[in-house]
């Protein structure tokens, strides 16, 4: 009985264990460079943009949908941040100019998601088709508004949101509050949260040993935290799971299916907008061709995390570990100077292996 329970426990945490193995292998292969505080901090910063998109994508996939437009929408939002900063001169308007650009870009993302969601709710066409269309339209608009060229430089008040760190004291305070909340939230089954706690501990240590908590990572924590809260603590979250499980039954049970669908895609757009402005801040310029294939990394993170593409099953913790797996692969292969063409091949293989192993485990439980 005890062996059985242990085995089930390990199966449930298969992706986390896979992640730890990956970390171990990378550390050995890089003579410990991988585990340095600086590298782990960078790894999480690299993971953040995908993590924000994946948080929204979790909701989208949970209701049985898909959103292929997020990369293009991020680019479009970034272009608006760039235009407002450079052409409209908001870069010269200090902090308020930075805020205005930020919210303009986020608003563009939200609006895109709002329109996509409305089309889905009204036309009842498969989300794959609508968002494929939206993907091409948003990319086209980004190229039109930018005249096909990148826009730079961004104002010095906007750039810090993607490059700065919280001070060490503030970082420590934030980490303590976050960890206490997380542990308290899981107090009834702490053993189930063991792997996440270990992972959080590892990254917290690196932040404190390096330059503090990256602001970029804060955005990811906020996005995932918001989605986690919605999913577990509100009737909106229940409706999301319910729609993905059986849309018709949800309708009969009084779930406002269209409204929830609409909100989910709007949130996805909002997250894509945030990603866009963060991306252009990090690169110090808005590129109309940015964000290509972002949607695929986001979908991969969600699926590696165990969310069913049919909808109705999945958690944000799964998406987090999926995001970390992808980021670790990218980062580790960079450290090992694997040529980028080969990286793509490896990443594809890992995605297929991870999902098929996870699926096999689930069926045997």
């Amino acid at each position, binding site marked *: 009985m005890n062996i059985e329970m242990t085995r089930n426990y390990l199966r449930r945490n298969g992706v986390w264990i896979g992640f730890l193995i990956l970390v171990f292998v990378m550390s050995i292969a890089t003579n410990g460079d991988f585990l340095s505080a600086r590298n782990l901090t960078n790894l999480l910063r690299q993971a953040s943009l995908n993590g924000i998109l994946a948080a929204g994508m979790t909701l989208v996939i949970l209701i049985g949908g898909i959103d292929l437009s997020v990369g293009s929408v991020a680019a479009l939002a970034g272009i608006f941040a760039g235009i407002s900063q450079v052409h409209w001169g908001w870069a010269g308007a200090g902090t308020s100019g930075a805020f205005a650009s930020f919210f303009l870009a986020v608003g563009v993302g939200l609006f895109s998601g709002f329109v996509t969601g409305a089309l889905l709710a009204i036309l009842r066409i498969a989300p794959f088709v609508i968002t494929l269309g939206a993907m091409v339209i948003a990319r086209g608009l980004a190229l039109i508004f930018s005249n096909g060229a990148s826009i730079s430089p961004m104002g010095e008040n906007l750039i810090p949101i993607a490059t700065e760190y919280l001070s060490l004291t503030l970082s420590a305070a934030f980490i303590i509050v976050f960890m206490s909340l997380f542990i308290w939230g899981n107090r009834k089954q702490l053993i189930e949260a063991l792997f996440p706690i270990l992972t959080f501990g590892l990254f917290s240590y690196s932040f404190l040993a390096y330059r503090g908590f990256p602001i970029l990572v804060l955005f990811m924590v906020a996005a995932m935290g918001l989605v986690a809260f919605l999913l577990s603590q*509100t009737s909106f979250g229940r409706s999301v799971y319910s729609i993905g499980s*059986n849309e018709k*039954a949800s309708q*009969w*049970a*009084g779930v406002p299916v269209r*409204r929830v669908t609409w909100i989910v895609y709007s949130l996805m757009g909002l997250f894509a907008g945030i990603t866009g402005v963060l991306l252009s801040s990090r690169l110090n310029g808005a590129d109309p061709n940015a964000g290509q294939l972002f949607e695929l990394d986001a979908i991969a993170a969600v699926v590696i995390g165990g969310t069913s593409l049919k909808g*109705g099953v999945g958690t944000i913790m799964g998406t987090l570990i999926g995001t970390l797996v992808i980021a670790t692969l990218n980062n580790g292969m960079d450290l090992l100077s694997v040529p980028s063409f080969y990286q793509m091949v490896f990443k594809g293989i890992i995605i297929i292996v991870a999902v098929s192993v996870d699926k096999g485990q689930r069926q045997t439980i």
Partner: protein
Amino acid sequence: MAELARLSNVTKDFSGVKALDAVNLRLESNEILALVGENGAGKSTLMKILSGVYPSGSFTGEIFIDGKPTHFTSPLDAEKSGIAIIHQELSSFPHLTVAENIFVGHWPTRFGLVDWAQLNKKALQILNRVGANCKPTDMMGNLSVGTQQIIEIAKALSRESRIIILDEPTSALTPKEVKSLFLLLKELKNSGHALVYISHKMEEIYNLTDRIVVLRDGKTVHTALTSELPEEKLISHMVGRSLDRLFPHFPTRELGDQVLKIENFAGKNKAGKHLFGPLSLNLRRGEILGFAGLLGAGRSEILQSLFGDLNIEVQGSLKLKNSTVKVKHPREALRHNLAFVGEDRKRDSLLPTRSLNENVSIARLASNSLLRWLNNSKEKNTSSISLAQMNTKMSSLEQSIQELSGGNQQKIILARALQTSPEIIILDEPTRGVDVGAKYEIYEIIFKLVQQGKSLLLVSSDLPELMALSDRIVVISEGFMTAEFNRSEFSETEIMKMAIKKVAREIS
């Protein structure tokens, strides 16, 4: 009579739970065997073993075909040994023709290509043999469920199956279709086939079968010739206790004021096709109003449109208590204190990937504001209480709803509907696919509800059940109301007569 197949000492367990426990079963030619038992008794598991779905090695015990021990590693092996299974939910391909459906996977070929002429010719021969009322080139999806059922049998015959297993084949058939199905089954029996008939319907078992095997908790508890086993005894073997009645005592009560009234109520679908009405009805507090009619008569559509079905456009007026309302979405219906349990549990009710707890609470939570905070521990308490009241058999609230039997699933769905504290409850086929014991419990729940002053609109294709439960029955035929009977006037033949009555279209 000759023995075609025998299962000996078959035991199958699912992670420690014994689904079958040393079961023995003998199938003989020229015989229709009834396999009966409550949901969860092990019928499906047994048939899955016989048809190779659970391969040899995943269970203990032996299968003998024509006296020889046989091991199936896949359903294909079983098919080759002459065993065919026809599932409750048809597994046909609606977008292929009848001939293609019959020969799927076994297409006659010429030079490696499908020989269409041969395909249709062979199909026609088999269709004639089973007396199916269709052409080989008809699209499967355009045929009635009854005809599709018969084509499934034709498919089995095309593979020279000698043993045909039918799992509740009549649940979606009209009485006429049932009749022709039975004729066919009897003919097959006389031509030397062995048939296994799985059903909850007593009438069918006694009309059709020769021998009965009763399964309970994975064991064969009784075997007898059908002619020698009276119905009450059969039921007591099935449930393991004696049920002196099929139905609880009908509660006498005073009916209250009118709570619902519809006038000139008519509905059509989005494509403009007439579905029902115009018709006028009323419902009083504490009353059970039954809807009788054939499948497809429009009964379900009437109830669905009362509950705000998005695909039905309605005309006419709906009055709840004394105010006229429009119900455009199930959410609005819930706010007007209506509740609804749909006819097809899998399609209309179950959230298969979610826990019992979430399945129970979804209507109460979702019909409120979306941003409402959940109180998880309070929610679980509420769910536990609801399910305990329903006497649901379960191991934990976190269990997946798919692990429960049909009867227990139905209780969960009823509990979900009641959590919104409705005044008027719409139940469409509430006992479909539910075993005898759970049926009785559902009847008790229904009677308890009306004694508390709730009112019910009820559809059931099981006429004796409908007559036992209703205060009043309206009969629907082709979307129109053809008759109304008070409880004292109930008569099966009169109701059936009105149910098949042709209605002159009053409006086009």
